[in-house]
Every structure is written in C-alpha cells, then in structure tokens.
C-alpha cells in the first residue's frame, strides 16, 4: 500500500491553537480534518507537508448545525453524516440531504467534514455546489480575527481557496428566506464516484407565487463549482413553468465549460447541465408546495 512521506504530527484542540500553530509553521503545515481527500493525496505523494495539524478535536467546537432567525450556521467540522441526518437542515434545505446521500459512501461520510470538502476545492465536489447554490458565505479565522467571504470569492481555482496559510475555515452561513426550497441531483458512473455533472437549485417564490429568486449551482463542468448568474435573471418575476426550466437549462448548458475526460464527453456533460438544471428546478419548486417529484 502507498504511504505518505514523513511529516510531523501535531494535534490542536482549539481554533486559536490551530491558528497560532499555523502562523508559526507557515506553508510547511496543513490542517487535516476527516482526511479523506488529503491523506490519499499524501499517500500518492501528490501532496507533501512537513507538519500535519490534526483538528479533529475541534469537532466539539466546530461541529454544529444552528438555526437562527434568517440563517443557518454550520460549523466547519460538521461531518457529512451529521449533515445527512439532520432533520432540521433537511427541512430548511432539502438540497443537503439530496447531496449527502450521493457524496462518497457511508463510511467516508462518517469522517469527512463540510470544511474539508470546501477547502479541498475540487471542481467536482458536491458540497461546494450546494453551498454555491444556497449563496453561502464562509467564515475564516486568522490571527487578526475572522473575516467572511462569499462562495464566489472562496474558491479561486481548482484546489485553491481564499483561506490563507495561517487561517482556518470555521463556519459556513446560509441565508434562510421564506417560501423557498431546494434540490440536488448528481449523475455518476457508479455509487461513490465523483460527479459526471451535478446540479443544485434553490428557488424562492413571492406572495403572488412568482419566482422571487432562483439559484443554480453546477459541479464538474468548470474550474470550480459555479453559480449560474443568468438563470436568476431569467427566472425572477416569472411564474414557475416547464418552459422556464427549459430556458434555464439552456442557460446552464451555455454557461458551463465542461471538458471531455473518462467520466464523459464535453457534449454529454453540457447536455447533463441542461437536463439536471431542469430537474432540480422542477423539484425545488414542487417542494415549496410540499410535493416530491
């Protein structure tokens, strides 16, 4: 079996401790949470660090799902399994349960965390697409306190984030708006595989039943998961309708930039961006009315 190159293992038990240690060690150190993306990369020696800082003990501090008026805050150490099993989260954002059911596998979900997923910044990563769809913002802690960045600013390219060498992602915040719902769908070659394409949608209606806002996030069809801005513009103020979803699908297909690889041809992925956009919009709207399609 492949094994990582030597490094020094450190363990921290508070966010402040983590930040202080990171500040001291600079880019020779890396945080490890669930480790299910990082450790395989270290075993394959695609990633090497002098220090690995284990933050699993921060689960007590950063493992939470908190509903507050107008928003839900989720700690970065919240594990996939906790996201999947939270009824409170599923009630506010059914997209989470849709996505978590198809992320990796149940055993990996026992370890993997929200923060780890976002910080890996894999363009095919599903939780990033969920956060993008829900217009989340990320709380980043450093020596000088915390700052908040939007998902658009958080991901800066494949495997690159806004988190600095001496910083740690601590929380992700989701605005809650009335009369909204969401949905997620992924096409994969096999259970547990990375997405060929995934799409998430969140839709909010106004008092008149017209679309107040709509967001679509796509994974695996660009350098990072991407929110498709044009869709919101096209849908706002319209009454929900199949033709509208089709138009949104066209916009998604147009806006994405898939490449041909072992998971599928670029043409197929573009088709999926369209097809899945239609499906998740349809499902999200149905869910506002309490229906499942």
């Amino acid at each position: 079996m492949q094994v990582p190159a030597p490094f020094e293992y450190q363990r921290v038990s508070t966010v402040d401790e983590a930040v202080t240690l990171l500040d001291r060690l600079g880019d020779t150190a890396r945080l490890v949470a669930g480790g299910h993306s990082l450790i395989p990369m270290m075993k394959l020696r695609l990633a090497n660090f002098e220090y690995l800082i284990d933050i699993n003990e921060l689960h007590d501090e950063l493992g939470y799902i908190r509903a507050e008026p107008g928003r839900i805050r989720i700690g970065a150490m919240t594990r996939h399994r906790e996201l999947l099993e939270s009824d409170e989260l599923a009630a506010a954002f059914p997209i989470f349960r849709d996505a978590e059911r198809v992320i990796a596998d149940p055993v990996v979900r026992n370890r993997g965390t929200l923060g780890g997923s976002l910080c890996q910044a894999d363009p095919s990563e599903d939780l990033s697409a969920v956060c993008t769809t829900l217009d989340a913002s990320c709380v980043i802690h450093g020596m000088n306190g915390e700052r908040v960045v939007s998902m658009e600013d958080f991901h800066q390219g494949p495997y690159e984030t806004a988190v600095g060498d001496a910083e740690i992602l601590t929380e992700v915040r989701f605005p809650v708006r009335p009369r909204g719902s969401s949905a997620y769908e992924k096409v994969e070659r096999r259970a547990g595989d990375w997405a060929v394409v995934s799409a998430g949608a969140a839709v909010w209606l106004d008092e008149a039943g017209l679309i107040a806002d709509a967001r679509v996030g796509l994974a695996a069809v660009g350098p990072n998961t991407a929110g498709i801005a044009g869709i919101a513009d096209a849908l706002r103020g319209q009454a929900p309708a199949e033709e509208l979803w089709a138009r949104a699908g066209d916009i998604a297909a147009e806006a994405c930039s898939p490449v041909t690889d072992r998971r599928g041809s670029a043409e197929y992925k573009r088709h999926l961006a369209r097809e899945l956009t239609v499906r998740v919009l349809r499902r999200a709207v149905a869910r506002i009315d309490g229906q499942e399609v």
Partner: protein
Amino acid sequence: MTTVASNGHRTAFVDNDRKPTGHGRMLRKEDPRFVRGKGRYVDDLQLPGMLHLAILRSPLAHARVLSVDTTLAEAHPKVRLVVTGAMLAEKGLAWMPTLSNDVQAVLATDKVRFQGQEVAFVVAEDRYSARDALELIDVEYEALDPVIDVRTALSPDAPVIRDDLEGKSDNHCFDWETGDAAETDAVFARADVVVSEDIVYPRVHPAPMETCGAVADYDAVDGKLTLWSTTQAPHAHRTLYALVAGLPEHKIRVVSPDIGGGFGNKVPIYPGYVCAIVGSLLTGKPVKWMEDRAENLISTGFARDYVMRGEIAATRDGKILAIRTNVLADHGAFNGTAAPVKYPAGFFGVFTGSYDLEAAHCKMTAVYTNKAPGGVAYACSFRITEAVYLVERIVNCLAFELDMDPVELRMKNFIRPEQFPYRTKTGWVYDSGNYAPTMELAKQLAGYDELRAEQAEKRVRGELMGIGVSFFTEAVGAGPRKDMDILGLGMADGCELRVHPTGKAVVRLSVQTQGQGHETTFAQIVAEELGIPPQDIEVVHGDTDQTPFGLGTYGSRSTPVSGAAAALVARKVRDKAKLIASGMLEVSVADLEWEKGSFRVAGDPNASVTIQDIAMRAHGAGDLPEGVEGGLEAQICYNPENLTYPHGAYICVVDIDPGTAKVTVRRFVAVDDCGTRINPMIIEGQVHGGLTDGVGMALMEMIAFDEDGNCLSGSLMDYLIPTALEVPDWETGFTVTPSPHHPIGAKGVGESATVGSPPAIVNAVVDALAPFGIRHADMPLTPSRVWEAMQGRPVPPI
C-alpha cells in the same frame, strides 16, 4: 434419463447412484477462520528479521534507459539493498520467460516498454522506508514514441517495441487461424443474409481485493528457498523458478496461503516475485513484497483487449449457417498470455457458440503495444469471454436485422441433444448439452413474454427498457495432456488421499482455492465416495511440499480436473478397503456390496464392516489378505479425457433514464448447467460473483490509456468496480446435464457467469436503444457512451 420438474418442463436428471455427495448445501469449512479475521494472507506473514521490498517503476510507456543512479537510495539509513536491471543482467536474471514462450524483463536494462514497468528495487527495514528510498533513485530516460493504438501497431512507421528480440523489425506478435476459410467463404457467398459488426472487448483487469505479493525466505545453510506468494498455481511456479533461477526444484517450496481473490490475476509469475527472491538471496533475510493497488492495475495481468470484426451468415428465416471473424489482439509489451502452449488465443476457437453451424473461420493477428503484458485473466476461461461475447452479440445483430425475437432465433439454431458429443466446425468436441430446457427455464423465471409486453407499453410512452438474452457454452477443465501443456507441463493434476487409523482422512490437492471453497467441495466429493463425513476430511492445498504436482486453479478447472482426481483417488482407496474387508468378513471380494460407508456381505445384513473399521485394520495388528500392504491411502494423477462444457441461459432487464442515459440493471436471471452439482450454495456464490463481473465489464470497467501511454485507470477511483448498489438481487436457476466423461458428471462453474453475463447486459442496453435504430454499442456502457450512442455517434472504447 429425463424427468418433469415441478415447474413443468423436461430436463436432464442425474441417476441417483451417481449423485456425488449427498451432503449438498453444506456450510463452508474454511469460514470459521475468515469470520474471525484469522485468515492467513501473504501480507499477514511477519517473519523475524523480515525486510521490505519496493519497486521503482517507469513513468513512461516507451523510453530508453540511459542511466540509473542509486547512490542516494543506498545512503538511506534503513536501506539494505538496491538492485537495478544492470545488476540483474550480470547474474543472468534480467529477463525471465513468460507463460507463452516469450521473455519479459524482470528489471529494465535497455528500454522500458510500458508505463509501470519495473526498473529497480529497494530492500529496506520497513515498508515506509522502502517506499521513501524509491524517491532517491535517479533514472535518466530518453523518451521514445509509444505504440498505443492497436490498429496502428503494424504500420510500417510504427516504432519497434521489441528490439530485444533478434531481427525483430515490426510489432507483430503472432498469427493464428482456426476453421476452414474457403468453406466458410462459400457458405457466406450463398447466404440470404449476412450481418457484420465491429465489436471491441476492451482491456479490463481482474483487480482482486488482495493485490499480488510474496515473502521470499532463502535459507543459505540448507540452500532452501521458501516462497509464500499470491499464486493460483504453486506447482507450476515452483518449476518455473527452478528453470529461471537455476535453483534445484527440491530446494524450492512455494506456499500459497489464503488468497484474497485471484480471477486469473495470480496465474502469471510477476517480476516482483523474482525481485523478492533475489532480495532474499542477496540479503540472507526474509523479504516481503506487496504491490499497491496502482501497481496491481498498471502492471499485472490485464484481460481481453480484442478488436473483433464479427460476421454471421443466415437464411432469411433465421437458420444460422456460418460465423466468420477477424481479430486484432493487443498483447501489450510482452506476450504474457497464460494459456496452453498450442492455444495462443486460448480457447477463443469456441466462438461458434451453442449453435449448429455449417462453417466457421477465425483469423487473428496479435501485436505488441506499449502496454502492460497479460491477456488471459479475469475469469475468462482462456478467452471464452471474448468468444461468447462475439457470438452472442453478432447473433443479436442478426436478430435485429431479421426482426426476430432473440430467444426464438437461438432456440432455432441450438445444437440438439442427440448431436452430442458434438464436434464444432473449429474442432472442439462438446461433451454433453441440452440447451432448449435451460433457455426455457430462464424464460419462465424471467417471465419473458410479460417483460416483452411491458416493454412494448413503455416504448409507447418513450420509456427505455431493454431485455437482453445470452446463451453460452463454456469449455473448462484444461486439459488432456496430449493437447494441453503450459511451458511443457501437462495439465493433469495429482491427488493424494490418506485415511488415518481412526477413519479420519486427509486429501491433498494440487489446485489452490482463492475463495472457491475447495476445503469444503473436495471434502464433500471424497465424503460421498468413501462414506466418511466431510467434517472428518481435511483438505490440504497450496503448499508444494505437502501436495502432489498439478497445474493449479484457473480456467474453472478445479472441479473438472482435481474434482475428478479426488473422486478417483477415493475409489482407489475404496478398492483397497474392499480387499481388507473381504479378509475381515472372511468372504470373497465378489460377495461384498458397497453401501456408503461400509462393505457388507450380500444377502447377510448383519455382516458388514465400516470404512472406519477397515482403516483401523489397515493400520493395526494382525494379517491382511495376501498381497495387501498396510495403510489405507492412494495417489493418482488425473489426465482429463476432454474438457467439460457447461452451458447457461441468461436474461437481463435494464432501464435507461432517457434524460441522463444512465443504465440500471433491474433484474438478472441466470440459469446454469454445470453438470452434477456438489454444493449448491457454493455454485450459487460462484454464479453471483461472475454476474457482478459482467455488470462491471458491461457498464464501467476499463483499463484506458492516453495517447502517450499513460494508464488512466491506475486506482479504484478510476477503475470502477460495481458496489452493492449497481447490482440487482440475482435470480438463479439450474438444469443438470452431467459430463459423460467426468467420474461424477461434474463440469466447472467458476467462470460461467463472467463469460455469459456481459453479452446479456449489452444486449439488454442495445435492445432498450432500439427506438434509436441502434444495433451495437461497445462496452463499457457508461452514461456518456450510452448518450453518445443515442445521438447516433457510438464511440469506440479505444
């Protein structure tokens, strides 16, 4: 004889006196250790002072090795030894023979010829340090153009891969032909209907859950080498090590402990095993080598990789007349095919399938490419996977063109029961078969007519549902020694049976289980023949010092060959027991009758002796009948008269999401006929496993390369294997047509489902896509490839 089964159809029936075991579904004797985590696999072995070996592999597919600098690696504090190809060359060990009379580099000297080829190795005090030291070896390469696309391998400007072979000026590996070309052409010329299709069976990999590895322990004092290794053929390996390394054969002991799945991957000898041996010889310590998953996928025996042109000739009303095929076979950088010497294409010659033809012909060209060697692996029954896929696909193409039901077309062309033994147009003699009842049973279990009705309704609604049928005839149990050998070693297998004084027994086999349940099945065979309970019979296997010579377990040969040997050696013991019983009962041998477990005097129900009584007498005090030696044991070497030919009928139902093109296998019905059945539970398990392989190959598995020869499937993230969520709850049934020449009528079953299921699944997917006018699409049918087919542009896999 035939009988009417409860489900109403007629089928073959085994005579009761030939019913083999009487123990039927028996729980496995090997399981108590496995469920406790007490299995003993190669990597579980920890010997005092053991060192660890890691192999440096080529990052390039084709390159000249200019220099290998090991200075830094040797300076690593925990490294004991670093070996390069040049060092092996000095000892004459840089090259080793393959199982197909080619040679393969143990460590590259002149060139590397595929990505992942072995270049150097390190032996260190622990496995982490060995891996670290690989980073310290500096190899200078001069990159050469690689040959990756098999279709261009023979073009005049293609770089020559095997310039190590004297006078080699192209990438041609071999030509092979079977059947009668002129006769076949003549039949094609007068046929009403001719259908042709290009059919690719992509490169796949057996990927057993346990990778390959070995622990070599050379004892310099008595000159004995013990090699624990992941091998399906310990005896054959021992002989080859003797020939390669020049070690005397009696000073080599090969032990194959518990094996975490083989599927053909553990038949060849890999450079890693030889490296471990060299490492132990040079350090005087036990040396362990366990490859990682990437090494397993990129360097060990792949399977398939046939580019086939299939053609079928028939009458307008669906009588198949002839099949013709042209095959381009990719053998990788070295011809490492593990097949009987006279069969360079394995048993591909059975591509005529289960049908009574007037003519058949195959022409094959095999080439070298800059890819890993191998070619016969992954439960293929020596290339019958490819043969059955070809015939079952092309027959379906014919059904499509004739607008005929695929079951009806098959039924119309089956070899009829009275034609057995049946000689095919390519010279194979099928021992027995009764195909129609098997097909009928599959139809019944599936509810075939109802499925077709459902499909018709769904098509109106635009839903994509497909029903796929395949029917296969396997050829397993290699094989008669007059025809079949591997590197000169005849494919007969020994078996030794000892009955201890208290009537317990030990049976020693040359074959080696990798999960097939030999410790149970073989105990059952002997139990039935001797009347000793199977719990009282120990099965010993996988150790060349403890078992008689034989060629090992692959090609579904254990039951056809060693199963026969076990039955016959038990009968030999029983014959001797009869002589002893005649003395004990003071009657002549002719007056004795065998009733399972005892001999009794005919006509005198009170006069009998049990096999246990006889065993004690055989070892005890007192006289034995004249000319009878003490002890109760026997040994034989079984040379099969012919292969056995199991068959089966499979029906697969798939649904395809029209929007995403994702295929779901909804149902799979498999009816197998493997002759006399020994342990139905184990048989069912073998079938289930093979069906899952079929789903893998049909829908997701493929070893792919980019144009530079980089392997794109070097991890289980990229080489996809089905999980529990991709396969249905299998529905199985069986018919029984015993083999006439096997002592208990058994055939083999280990690979039947791997052979038979891929065409059923592909036929189902293609059937679902019929509204798009699609007649063929190549595996693996990933969502993307299915969608491309729906757009009218099916993509070949290479």
